[in-house]
């Protein structure tokens, strides 16, 4: 208890509170502006922390991380361009809500459930870090492969009308990620002798291209009729979600928090897979699954709760095992190391004070995020008043800057453009874009874990059916695919007959 009070004292200093708030603000700004990503914000914040005391320093980084994770939903909802890969699932229902004039409700819900998910996962982390990290250790390459495969099966739920088009899109995502230097064998793949191709396609660059470029092209290609536009402006209001709305979704929020925390705790997965699984789960168990993709609030609640629950979850392997779950937490790890806080099993013996200080910092960061976002929504919604063409120009500039800043590579700007134009073509053929992101996020993990598992077993596939965990995830994946196939078959039966009659 003494240590806790001491930690509370060190985290409650004006300096610490201010640096956490600053971090949250930076994260929110970078997370919510399309093109700019909070991984870049973290990289910029890292050198600032060198000269700070440990708790404010870590607070600044955690604040940026949490602010960014939450901010990603803002542009996903308002513009349909996710600020982070974790917010890609939020676009599906969040953006339609904006089109219906309910942007502020979607934004308000997103931030409130994010804070709920984040605090929930922090509590889980505090009470069960030891237990959960032991479970996480039992996740070897085969288990992670199975989990990721299960994650990929959610493509079924994202296809909209056609399963085939969804699969095409998912496979494209998987293929894009094979370009570059293969990390396992160290060989070049599909680089055509070009040094720039060797760095591969960056996930964030591709994401900017996939969502932002079609937005920009559409803004200029489609001459929106004036009445519709003015209608939209008049509908912009800053209304927050009611308590009743949140109350109705409490059970969903709890389920998605558990999902997010659990997935976050497994090294090498992360926010995107959690938010897609949560979205798929919400849709499958919803009373009105047909309204998903058309602005169902549950489609915002589920992924946003889950991707913030991941923040607490990823702290478990980060602190207890020293394994960062994604590039963002890798930077947090660097910040910890520089201040002499080496994560691992001995961390809780040597640095209990700092660890408790971090817990308090996470809570403070969420309070900051809640406050900043609820005030910010009133400002954010005014973005919708900007004429689409002007907005598109702004987005274009920001995206070019964003794509460049990730790796300081001009080539990435071209990649963004090329991927974006391809995405626009796909969109015009009604091929869904979201499965590409899912394929890209999960592709490298899927491939590497499979290969590592096969190396471990010396080429014996037995490793994939000897572990109960693996079998559970395989069955879940099969179940999802089976259910989808059945419902697709049922839905197709009727129209198919009609087509036949036509022909």
């Amino acid at each position, binding site marked *: 208890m003494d240590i806790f009070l001491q930690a509370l004292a060190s985290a409650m200093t004006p300096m610490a509170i201010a640096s956490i708030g600053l971090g949250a603000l930076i994260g929110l700004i970078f997370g919510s502006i399309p093109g700019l990503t909070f991984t870049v914000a973290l990289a910029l914040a890292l050198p600032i922390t060198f000269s700070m005391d440990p708790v404010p320093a870590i607070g600044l980084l955690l604040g940026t991380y949490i602010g960014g994770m939450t901010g990603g939903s803002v542009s996903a909802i308002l513009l349909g361009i996710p600020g982070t890969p974790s917010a890609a699932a939020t676009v599906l229902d969040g953006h339609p809500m904006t089109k219906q004039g309910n942007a502020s409700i979607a934004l308000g819900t997103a931030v409130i459930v994010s804070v709920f998910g984040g605090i929930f996962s922090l509590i889980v982390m505090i009470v069960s870090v030891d237990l959960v990290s032991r479970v996480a250790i*039992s996740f*070897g390459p085969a288990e992670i492969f199975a989990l990721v495969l299960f994650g990929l099966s959610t493509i079924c739920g994202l296809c909209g009308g056609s399963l085939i088009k969804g699969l095409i899109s998912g496979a494209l995502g998987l293929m894009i990620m094979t370009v*570059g230097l293969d*990390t396992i064998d160290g060989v070049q793949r599909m680089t055509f002798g070009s040094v*720039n191709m060797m760095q591969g396609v960056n996930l964030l660059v591709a994401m900017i291209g996939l969502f932002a470029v079609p937005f920009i092209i559409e803004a200029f290609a489609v001459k929106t009729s004036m009445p519709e536009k003015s209608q939209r402006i008049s509908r912009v209001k800053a209304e927050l979600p009611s308590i009743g709305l949140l109350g109705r979704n409490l059970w969903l929020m709890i389920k998605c928090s558990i999902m997010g925390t659990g997935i976050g705790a497994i090294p090498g997965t992360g926010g995107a897979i959690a938010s897609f699984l949560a979205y798929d789960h919400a849709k499958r168990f919803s009373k009105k699954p047909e309204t998903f993709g058309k602005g169902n609030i549950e489609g915002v609640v589920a992924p946003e709760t889950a991707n913030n629950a991941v923040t607490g979850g990823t702290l478990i392997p980060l602190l207890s095992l020293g394994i960062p779950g994604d590039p963002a937490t890798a930077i947090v790890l660097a910040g910890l190391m520089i201040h002499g806080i080496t994560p*691992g*099993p001995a961390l809780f013996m040597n640095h209990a004070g700092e660890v408790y200080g971090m817990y308090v910092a996470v809570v403070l960061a969420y309070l900051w995020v809640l406050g900043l976002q609820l005030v910010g929504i009133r400002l954010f919604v005014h973005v919708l008043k900007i004429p689409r063409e002007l907005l598109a120009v702004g987005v274009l500039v920001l995206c070019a800057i964003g794509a460049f800043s990730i790796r300081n590579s001009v080539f990435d700007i071209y990649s963004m453009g090329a991927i974006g134009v391809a995405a626009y073509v796909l969109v015009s053929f009604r091929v869904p874009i979201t499965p590409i992101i899912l394929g890209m996020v999960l592709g490298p993990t899927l491939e590497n874990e499979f290969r*590592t598992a096969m*190396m471990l077993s010396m080429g014996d596939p037995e490793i994939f059916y000897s572990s109960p965990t693996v079998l559970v995830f395989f069955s879940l994946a099969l179940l999802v695919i089976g259910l989808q196939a059945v419902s697709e078959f049922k839905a197709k039966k009727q129209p198919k007959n009609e087509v036949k009659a036509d022909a």
Partner: protein
Amino acid sequence: MTKIKTLRRATTGLLAAAAMSFAGTAQAEFPDRPIEMTILFGGTANSIAQLLTDLMSQEMSQPIVPVSRTGGGGAVGYSYVVNTPADGYNIVWNSNSINTGNHMGRIDFNYEAFTPIARVSTEIPALAVNASTGWEDLSDMVEAVQASGDVLRVGISGRGSFTHLTSAALFDALGIGEQVAYIAYGDGRAPVELLAERIDAAIQWPGQFASYVEAGELNVLAVTGDTRVNVLPDVATAMEQGYDVNISMWRGLAAPAGTPDDVVAALQAAAEAAVMSDTFQEASDNIGFTPAFLPAAEFGALIAEDDAFYGALLTELGMAQ
């Protein structure tokens, strides 16, 4: 253009004069604008580089700006810097990857395309096993492996990675190279895999193992350099244990070949002052590296020597191109 240049010269003159009155090391001519340091990797490499640029900037009249150009195992960053003018305004935070990158066919130029400036740090790999094996040093492991005749599963970051090359050299020296199967993870998950006993041994950086050693869950059998490491002072080197292996990862600074000597000397002086500073020495224990300044000439000799070594090793592993 000329106007800008004159203006720049004028400001530089002022700045340089101001700088010279504070520190005698700064040169009047160089640098007259910020210097860009290309960083090739994330993680430890990035952490050290951020700190180094911060400290070197305090020594020079102009800031040194760290710019991350990662990817392709360093190929992207090296290729960028090698094509910049040889005037010292573009330097690269290099490592053994210049040798391995060339021999593995990722870059079509070798270390001779760069002028060495100074070695800054070394990182010494360590070999760890699960504590339940009961192995305390290298000979324990060698005897157990030879007696059982089983294959030893060794975790590495990826084929051709530094951990792979170090493992290959070490297990050859131990005489059990034939009984080793390498498991590539593509990232630093080795400690967890050791803990779960999915692999039998792994070579990674001492900092990754330190916490587990303290908790009594892993044993570190040896470090592969010629000196012990601060984070694990009780662990003997492989050479102390009678095995002829001396591999460590060095990091340093280089500029495109043909950079003038006085420019190199100015950068070398700034690097030396940064490495010798208390801040750098303190940070080294936290991040897990050893400050190891070496001036340009000796650094160059080391790179050339390493190049032959890694060339031969990669050829032996069938990975040379």
